[in-house]
């Protein structure tokens, strides 16, 4: 009998966690331990040689963290995942595992500000060069490819730009050059979009956002589709004996989860951005309700977008879930919803936007997204502050932009708070 393909709602609750072998505990136990005993010297040797699977030290793997890893891999319809301390840790681990000095990256211009800085400043320091291109134009990615390009990086749904990536088209560009497409899928979450199903090779998440959903805990994940041919001659680190791990050839030995194993044994083991078991457990409490929450985030955000579009106190609104958004058709083709993130400009520009933010009653002024609470911020002065104005515009950030991460409060209350804050903002 063929194996059943379970739906996301079921996977979000069950994938990666069967009752505990030792105790029968139904809920996920928190294995709050740094280390795990060996049965014998031979067992220890086999574990270190990676000849048998097991836990050694929680910087490398931990049973509680593993439940989160497998669950998100299942939700992404992917082969394997490795968790780490934050979304930025996930992105840096994915990229540093692929890249080395002298390599080149083609990246979307419209990215989270921290990602722009990582590529343009921090990785550049180690000899990795990045070209930023218009994320709405697959031909721009193709035009920027060089012989030493080793990765293409973009967001499935831009934060805060709302730019929708044509994942299949950009994957084709990357694959024509024999390099992987790495997609940050934080904003849609695996419930609304599965980049691997559209051709992406690696997905990264800030699980701090929708996956956790409660705004209490930082975490990140790197997910591998299992379909990228790492033996195409461009990635010796995947095919040649690893000098950092006693000669293991990761792709030959682990095949379609070789990249995940290399992230774990080289990235986590050496750079050390491991996720604590307690944090993994807290994120998993959120993941169980992710499909339900995403449905409501999308409904509430669409109602907010319509309200703002029709309000004369608002100059512009950017939400790809609105039918007149230029990328609405693309969004509908590859996502099951437009998520809860949108941006707009208050009439009167930057000063009015600041008054709007300061006049909110329960909408929180802070720089997170994907919380149960509605969150508002001004990207030009916060998340994208380190970028100059031209970089900000390339990242889809206008000076007057107000970003809203629409939460799960009653939609009428959210609209009420927006309405009264707008009234304060344009009163003068």
């Amino acid at each position, binding site marked *: 009998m063929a194996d059943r393909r379970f739906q996301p709602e079921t996977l979000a609750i069950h994938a990666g966690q069967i009752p505990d072998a030792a105790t029968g505990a139904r809920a996920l136990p928190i294995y709050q331990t740094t280390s795990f005993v060996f049965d014998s010297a031979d067992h220890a040797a086999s574990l270190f040689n990676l000849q048998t*699977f097991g836990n050694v030290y929680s910087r490398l793997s931990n049973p509680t963290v593993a439940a989160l890893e497998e669950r998100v891999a299942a939700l992404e319809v992917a082969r394997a995942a490795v968790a780490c301390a934050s979304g930025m840790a996930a992105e840096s681990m994915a990229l540093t595992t692929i890249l080395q000095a002298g390599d080149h990256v083609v990246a979307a211009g419209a990215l989270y500000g921290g990602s722009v800085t990582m590529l343009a400043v921090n990785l550049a320091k180690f000899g990795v060069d990045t070209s930023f291109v218009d994320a709405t134009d697959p031909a721009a990615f193709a035009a920027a490819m060089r012989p030493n390009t080793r990765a293409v990086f973009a967001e499935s749904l831009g934060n805060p730009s709302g730019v929708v990536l044509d994942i299949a088209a950009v994957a084709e560009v990357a694959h024509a050059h024999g390099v992987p497409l790495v997609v940050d899928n934080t904003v849609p979450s695996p419930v609304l979009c599965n980049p691997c199903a559209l051709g992406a090779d690696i997905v990264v998440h800030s699980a701090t956002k929708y996956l956790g959903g409660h705004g209490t805990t930082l975490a990140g994940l790197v997910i591998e589709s299992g379909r990228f041919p790492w033996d195409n001659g461009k990635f010796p680190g995947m095919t040649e*004996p690893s000098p950092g791990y006693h000669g293991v050839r990761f792709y030959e030995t682990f095949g379609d*989860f070789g990249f995940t194993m290399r992230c774990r044994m080289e990235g986590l083991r050496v750079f050390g951005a491991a996720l604590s078991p307690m944090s993994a457990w807290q994120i998993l409490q959120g993941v169980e309700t992710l499909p339900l929450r995403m449905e409501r985030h999308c409904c509430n955000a669409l109602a907010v977008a319509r309200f703002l579009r029709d309000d004369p106190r608002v100059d512009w609104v950017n939400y790809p879930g609105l039918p007149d958004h230029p990328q609405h058709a693309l969004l509908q083709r590859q996502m099951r919803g437009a998520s809860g993130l949108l941006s707009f400009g208050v009439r009167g520009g930057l000063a009015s936007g600041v008054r709007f933010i300061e006049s909110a009653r329960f909408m929180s002024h802070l720089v997170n997204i994907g919380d149960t609470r509605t969150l508002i911020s001004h990207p030009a002065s916060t998340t994208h502050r380190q970028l100059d104005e031209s970089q900000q515009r390339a990242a889809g950030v206008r000076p007057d932009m107000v970003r809203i991460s629409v939460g799960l409060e009653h939609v009428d209350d959210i609209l009420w708070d927006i309405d009264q804050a707008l009234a304060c903002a344009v009163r003068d």
Partner: protein
Amino acid sequence: MADDIASLRRILKTCHTVAVVGLSAQWHRPSFFVAKYLQQHGYRVLPVNPRYAGESILDEPVYAALTDIPERVDMVDVFRRSDELLPVARDAVKIGARCLWQQIGVANAEADALVRAAGMDSVMNRCVKIEHARLFGGLHWAGVNTGVLSARRPD
């Protein structure tokens, strides 16, 4: 070809002796990883490799061919090129093995049909170590999507 969780579980639970065809003596080769793993999980490994015939690998004597093995073989696990598989499949039938397992990257449809016609189980293009770890624990700890959903303790 067996490919679903229930069939793979049954095969891995009912086979106890495993002839590993093409087993390397070098510790870092994938075939050695698999054989070592199988030994550690209670399977009897019977190395088959003409290159090392008469020597021993993992403390087991190495045979030149399946037909040289003087004891019952449950599973024949093959690390050979797909186009070299038919003679191995014929030998597997001859010695009365219950399962022909073609390792990941190995897929010979003719060999699959041949052993199934003889009433044997057949698995293609999968790694016996990875499947064991996937279905009986271990691979989950490596963050792999095992596809296993269950409200029962692992058995």
